[in-house]
């Protein structure tokens, strides 16, 4: 039981918006799909859900080819960015509707709805309309609806992008725990690399409709295959040095260190991050960002270097990594 995408493609007119996508997500695994807007990540979710047809390739869900199966029959638990709760129905009716459609007996429906509301700690909101709930509560109801679907896979399309930063941080572990409890594959779409690193077991980076790289968060961070992945994953963003022709050198801000024989630098700006500080430096090789421990002091002569193994080298034209 898992998800397998083979050679998936989707066209908009003559243009391929997604092509040659190969992806597997196993049970109980959370895979984050990340990339800039328009990279094809939401399209991927819609293809898996059956909301749009794939123009190429096959989708297997729970060991069964569902490529031609309509969305209505696919057993997908999806959480939309807009939540897509039915505004004319109360919270309880929102959750009940799908069960009713699937012909489940009334007592059983009542029990399941009340169970899930209990789990979401939203029992006292059962009679409210979605419009009367806060963003976080709506998000939990949307999640509850997906859970009640008893799906073969969970698809989450930027489920937290409409929430404020604090709430997002609070909900992240809760969301992970709730959906992974079922031991089903979870596909989590986000444009926020930080959220992806926090939520996912593995991350797939999409770029212009192609899969750029897939791996664990630390693999992507330490061993990016391309300039695109290197700049997309990791904040503060990786430093890029364009000193050699045809080669771009990348060094993570965390890998920079004070070094007597390093590049002479000038501090232009300092950001206090709490547990660390971020220095903006001017060097002969260009601007650099550097992360240091909170108790670091700015020395009189500022010289900065890095270990050779911390330097990533990319082809300036193709953006591919040089090994």
């Amino acid at each position: 039981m898992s998800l397998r995408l083979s050679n998936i493609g989707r066209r908009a007119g003559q243009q391929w918006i997604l092509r040659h996508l190969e992806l597997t997500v196993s049970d109980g695994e959370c895979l984050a799909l990340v990339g800039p807007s328009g990279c094809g990540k939401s399209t991927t979710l819609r293809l898996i859900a059956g909301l749009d047809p794939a123009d190429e390739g096959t989708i297997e869900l729970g060991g069964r080819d569902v490529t031609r199966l309509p969305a209505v029959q696919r057993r997908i638990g999806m959480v939309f960015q807009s939540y897509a709760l039915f505004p004319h129905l109360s919270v309880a009716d929102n959750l009940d509707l799908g069960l009713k459609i699937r012909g489940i007996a009334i007592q059983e429906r009542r029990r399941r709805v009340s169970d899930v509301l209990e789990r979401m700690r939203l029992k006292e909101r059962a009679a409210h309309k979605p419009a009367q709930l806060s963003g976080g509560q709506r998000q939990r109801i949307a999640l509850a609806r997906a859970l009640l679907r008893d799906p073969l896979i969970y698809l989450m399309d930027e489920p937290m992008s409409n929430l404020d930063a604090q709430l997002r941080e609070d909900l992240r572990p809760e969301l992970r725990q709730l959906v992974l409890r079922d031991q089903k594959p979870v596909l989590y779409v986000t444009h926020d690399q930080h959220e992806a690193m926090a939520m996912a077991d593995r991350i797939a980076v999409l770029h212009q409709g192609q899969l750029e790289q897939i791996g664990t968060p630390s693999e992507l961070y330490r061993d990016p295959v391309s300039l695109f992945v290197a700049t997309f994953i990791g904040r503060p963003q990786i430093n890029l040095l364009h000193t050699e022709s045809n080669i771009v050198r990348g060094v993570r801000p965390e890998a920079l260190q004070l070094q007597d024989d390093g590049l002479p630098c000038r501090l232009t700006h300092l950001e206090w991050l709490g547990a660390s500080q971020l220095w903006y430096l001017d060097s002969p090789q260009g601007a650099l960002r550097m992360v240091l421990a909170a108790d670091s002091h700015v020395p009189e002569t500022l010289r900065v270097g890095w270990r050779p193994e911390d330097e990533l080298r990319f082809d300036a034209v193709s953006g591919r990594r040089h090994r």
Partner: protein
Amino acid sequence: MSHQRRFWIVLLLAWSLGPLLWQLYTSFCSDQALVAPFAATPERWTLAHYRAVLNSEPPFWRYLVNSLIVGTSSTLLTLVIALPAAYALTRLKPWIARPARLLLLAAALFPYVLLFLALLEVARSLHLGNHLLALSLPYAALSQPLAILLLTAAFRDLPLDLEDAARLEGMGLWQRLRWVLIPLIAPATTSTAILVFLFSWNEYPIALTWISDASLLTLPVAMARIAGSSIYSVPYGAYAAATVLGSIPLVLLVLLFQKSIVSGLTSGAVKG
């Protein structure tokens, strides 16, 4: 500023309500008072016109019932066809939907009176004359363009995610319409229904030509008969009484659905 505004509002109200109030006044006036409004007549106020109208043969309520039957059936028939059609128009590819919408608009602007002779031929050859329910066929057909356009605007305003969510909940097309889409456009449906009902309530030429049996007449035709019942006098009082009685159901209807009419007519203007 506010004085000036009040003045214009009063003027507008007088302009639009004046004729109605005059009709109401006329319906309670005795015939003597009507011809000499300023003379001191002993019996100025009377219910005689209402009595006359209600006691005529067939009684006036009969026409009310006829009109209600025709209005209700044509409204239902219109919605049964227009709701799926409007939904389809919002989901079809633009190269079909756009010309279809233009055609509908053209049809909505077409003066239907030009059709009534042709419709009379249809009624004659299909033996549809003197059937109340048969009247709802042309009424529903003539109401389609406007109804579909209004409902299309309402469907288009619904977020696409809602239907996708319904689909993932396992709802087929009809279930989505039944449980999610149609309930969500209820305000637009109500205002559309009332417009259709109004049309059928007021329609004259088709009702006049399709129905000849006196007990099956609809209100407008019946009222025209009252007005033209004598060549020697015009029964202003009775006519006014009939008008008042005939408009009561409409006033009730509008009062009842006031809120959804307003919200329905403005749907499509701004995202709610």
